[in-house]
């Protein structure tokens, strides 16, 4: 079985600081990968590199067997096939919910406005936001904004979705609705990488878990393996700390 995404030996440095050191991972279609680890371990940078928002210094990122990290490759083409949801939502404040969702399908995929709106409406119905279609982002709660951000990414019909700590900026009582939306997507077979501090959620939704520390993949395996019986000291220490917090 060939992988949908195959990251091979990726390096990334900001100045003298090595953020990603020889990171490799593979993901097949319909698989959900959770990435956990202390802050500063390079998880977010990894997602930004996969989505080509940051150029990598070395290594390969194969999407459907094609190296999208190749400097010659058209980055815009790769990005439209990979959706990303940011920690801080990043909705467009000057556009209504509907226009946030239809902008890229209309401008990038050249889908007519009407057709894009029909797709958007379906997605809004599915995620229980139909009554918010004409609102502006400022008027929505954090949880609603993040669900709109998820829909905005889905509207491009991506083959891979990346979630960069999607609930970290939310009030505790709003975390559930966003995790619920991600779970729905996982159940429908969306291929995803989720960076999250919600370990219970990661255990619940992920097929595999990756533990990162200081830019390296320290441990990788099934959720139970990594999150319950880790073999490395660093993973154990991290899990103990997380258990104390929650």
């Amino acid at each position, binding site marked *: 079985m060939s992988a949908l995404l195959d990251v091979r030996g990726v390096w990334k440095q900001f100045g003298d600081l090595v953020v990603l050191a020889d990171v490799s991972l593979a993901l097949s279609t319909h698989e959900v990968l959770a990435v956990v680890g202390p802050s500063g371990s390079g998880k977010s940078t990894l997602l930004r590199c996969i989505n080509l928002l940051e150029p990598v210094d070395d290594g390969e990122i194969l999407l459907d067997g094609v190296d999208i990290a190749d400097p010659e490759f058209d980055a*815009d083409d790769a*990005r439209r096939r990979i*959706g990303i949801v940011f920690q801080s939502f990043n909705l*467009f*404040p*000057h556009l209504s919910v509907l226009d946030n969702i239809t902008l*890229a399908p209309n401008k990038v*995929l050249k889908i007519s406005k009407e057709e894009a709106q029909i797709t958007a409406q379906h997605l809004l119905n599915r995620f229980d936001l139909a009554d918010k279609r004409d609102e502006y982002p400022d008027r929505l709660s954090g949880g609603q904004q993040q669900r709109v951000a998820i829909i*905005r990414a889905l509207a491009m019909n991506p083959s891979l979705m990346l979630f960069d700590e999607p609930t970290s900026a939310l009030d505790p009582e709003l975390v559930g609705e966003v995790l619920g939306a991600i779970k729905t997507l996982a159940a429908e077979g969306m291929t995803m990488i989720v960076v999250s501090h919600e370990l219970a959620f990661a255990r619940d939704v992920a097929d595999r878990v990756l533990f990162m520390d200081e830019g390296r993949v320290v441990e990788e395996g099934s959720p139970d393996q990594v999150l319950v019986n880790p073999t490395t000291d660093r993973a154990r220490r991290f899990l103990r700390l997380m258990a104390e917090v929650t």
Partner: protein
Amino acid sequence: MTEAEAPHRDPDLSPGRARRLAYQNRQRRRSLLIGAVSTVLVFGVVILVVVNSPGWPTVRESFFSWEDFKASFPEILTGFARNVRIFLIAEVFILIVALILAVIRSSRAPVLTPLRLAATAYVDIIRGIPTIILLFLLGFGVPALRLQGVPNSQEFWAITTLVISYSAYVAEVYRAGIDSVHESQTSAARSLGLSSAQSMRWVVLPQAVRRVIPPLLNDFVALQKDSALLALLGVQEAFRRSQIYVAETFNFTAYLAAAFLFMLVTIPLARFTDYLIRRQRERTTGTSV
């Protein structure tokens, strides 16, 4: 999701609430009174000093003559119509040229490097030259070349000068707006597959322009006043007309008439700008202080 009912207050005032309202009212009346008294006092003193000055009778005669105001006004008013036409035409081109300059300066595409350097040099040089010198250079210099196919009208070169001069300033206003849009907006746009030009057009610029509308209006007020500079090229606008009247009658009231017309358009616009700034601040901070 069901909405919980919002907290509701009994219309009957509790003694505590009534006492607070009464206190607030007293405070408000007090500040109004202080404001009114001090205003009357300050302006009263100024007027007294001016009116009692030794030269006041002559000044009143030559600057505040109602007769001369009435006599000069129609001519100046037709001249002012020309100012309006000039600053409206100039403003349209300024907004367009400045936006192009700002977008070029903000872009990072290597293909645009020569253009970016040119735009930077343009902004630096033009902002360094007094508008009045530029006006003389273009207004007298270019028509003197008697080039084929180039307009020789001084009004044309006067408008061109205003466009050249103001677009350099306005470009910087736009650029500040573009810089104020957070990078994460560009990241979000690019992550959806929008090209860098599309991100600029559909995500960054709409937000940037909205934020700089008050400073743009501010520059528009300045432009309206600077349209009087055209008198120096002999364009028959309001200030030029008042100069002619003054030269014929040796009475300066005509200047006041011209100034009055300028204020008639600039002051409402300036107030409107202040209103927009206040509204914007309330929106972004949620307070009215």
